[in-house]
């Protein structure tokens, strides 16, 4: 049953959705607070190279994961400093973060080449299997469970973390006072300030949190999914995340559904290609398929007012 095409596609969709949900949850929290960071692509790439470098030099995947989270959080802190403290334009700064990360990761990769650690040492990456430390027999039993085996247990470790983080973010936003504050930061920062909430400190904190999550997503790509680094390996994924946050109408549930939907269509295009549809339809159509569907769905959706009201604006408005 687990070999059925539907199950394979669903499992691949989860695998593809993990970095999208991780980075997307962080971006959603930051955007809810009024911070529009278009530099996710750069944060992901930073996570990729830092994760790789940490794992290669430290000889341990956990060091890589920590390095990825720290490096991307630092880059996000730079963004926060520039936009919140220095009041630079958020879009321009975000694009600068992207460019910085492209150059920085490329340089770090050249250094890795020169110093001879271009390959991860054996066992310095996370292998497939959701819970680290379980015995092989237990892992095998879990992943052979019908349907939920491939979908839930035959994934990489961060899939579990993704579920926990997304659930926590949902709970925070919907059920707690912190959620009210985060919403208010993006809708009415003046009111927040009047209630004694340090608007700028909150925004900086959320941007750094978003950076850390994007860093983890980058580490997922380099030290979990492919066990190595190649320049620009994110291939525009950061911009997909940006679209998916909007697509999910700034709700965690919407975001997760959008990411999984994107994953399904992405996996589907791989299977359609290999089943001979290439001869009829140009392969570029398949590659663009997830993006085309996202665009059509976005355009078809009713324009709601569910987004943060003051997204991308510095606070205080007048100085």
């Amino acid at each position, binding site marked *: 049953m687990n070999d059925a095409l539907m199950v394979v596609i669903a499992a691949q969709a989860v695998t593809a959705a993990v970095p999208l949900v991780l980075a997307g949850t962080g971006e959603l929290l930051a955007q809810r607070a009024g911070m529009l960071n278009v530099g996710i692509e750069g944060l992901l790439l930073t996570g990729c190279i830092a994760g790789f470098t940490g794992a290669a030099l430290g000889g341990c995947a956990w060091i890589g994961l920590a390095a990825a989270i720290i490096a991307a959080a630092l880059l996000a802190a730079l963004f926060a400093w520039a936009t919140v403290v220095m009041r630079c334009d958020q879009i321009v700064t975000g694009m600068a973060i992207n460019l910085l990360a492209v150059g920085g990761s490329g340089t770090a990769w050249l250094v890795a080449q020169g110093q001879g650690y271009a*390959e991860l040492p054996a066992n310095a990456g996370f292998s497939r299997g959701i819970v680290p430390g379980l015995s092989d027999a237990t892992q095998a039993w879990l992943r052979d469970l019908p349907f939920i085996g491939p979908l839930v247990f035959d994934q990489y470790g961060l899939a579990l973390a993704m579920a926990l983080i997304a659930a926590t973010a949902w709970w925070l936003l919907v059920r707690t006072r912190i959620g009210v504050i985060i919403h208010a930061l993006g809708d009415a920062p003046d009111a927040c300030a009047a209630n004694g909430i340090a608007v700028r400190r909150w925004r900086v904190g959320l941007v750094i949190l978003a950076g850390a999550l994007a860093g983890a997503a980058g580490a997922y790509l380099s030290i979990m999914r492919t*066990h190595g680094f*190649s320049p620009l390996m994110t291939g525009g994924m950061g911009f997909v995340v940006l679209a998916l946050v909007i697509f999910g109408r700034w709700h965690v549930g919407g975001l997760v559904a959008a990411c999984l939907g994107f994953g399904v269509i992405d996996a589907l295009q791989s299977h359609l290609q290999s*089943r001979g549809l290439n001869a009829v339809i140009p392969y570029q159509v398949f590659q663009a398929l997830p993006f085309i569907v996202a665009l059509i769905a976005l355009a078809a959706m009713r324009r709601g007012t569910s987004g943060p009201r003051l997204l991308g604006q510095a606070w205080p408005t007048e100085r």
Partner: protein
Amino acid sequence: MLRTFLLLTLFCCAYTAEPLKIGLICSGSVTDGGWNQLAKEAIEQVKKELKAEVSILQKVTQDKAGDELRAYAADGYDLVIAHGYEFLTPAAEVAAGTTMKIAVSGADVARPGIVTLDFDVSQASYQLGVIAGTLTKSGKLGFVGGAPIPSVKACYRGFLAGARAVRPDVSVAEAYTSWDEPVKSKQQTEAFFAQGIDLVYHDVDAASRGVFEAVKERNARNPAKPVYVFGCVADQNANPICPDHILASAVIRLDATFRAVAESVVAKTFAAGVVRENLQRGTCVAVLNPRLIGTILTPEILAGVERAGKQLVAGSLIIPGE
């Protein structure tokens, strides 16, 4: 005094001849373990042998290639090798207005003023196809390419023809992802395995990591039904990801080609046209994985590969065109 000085200057000029300045423009990263890395290694070989001065540009896109070529020309370079089919049009444009020599790799059409280097890997791919057709249990093979450009399509056609020659009912699924994104090529290879494909051939650059990773994971999960893979362009048989499951590689001997072009510039015999590298010239060959010879690669398979090679060289066997 002045005369001595002039004489000395002349003397110096004659004996410190300017070294040959060669530029290399790569479409991808020179650490891709394939097409671009091969070019970097080849140009470094040329640098050593001809004592040339070498500059390498990585990840150059088609729209930037013209500017980079003009910049090289302005810097007084003697020869630039634009290493990729996509550079053909910009190279032909620049060549019309400069004395700098330009060679374009991976193209099989002539353009005025430039040398195009055609690497016909289809014959070596045919030999890999012979191995695949013999070894496949399911009769289903997979091919993943960076983009369906002529040289990649030729690999696919050769592979298909070789496999069908030994087992007529074989099918080869064909998919194109991206040259440099291992995440995508891995997902594609997983999709291949899900439909029962047990042998995969690739023609991608840095994305080959994704293909090998998928093979490694599949074999770790399901050792009873092993899947195998072929390398392309560079000799990838010893790739550390899955060295025991790479049966063979279709290899381009790029250093010989690059050296010949560079020498023709030195000897002032550089002439526009197409340089055709192939199995006959011994520059595009199938290299079997020595670790697997005698076990999976049985003497019968080796004989079949050799027989196909002889027929291809003799011209009695021709890879069908589009």
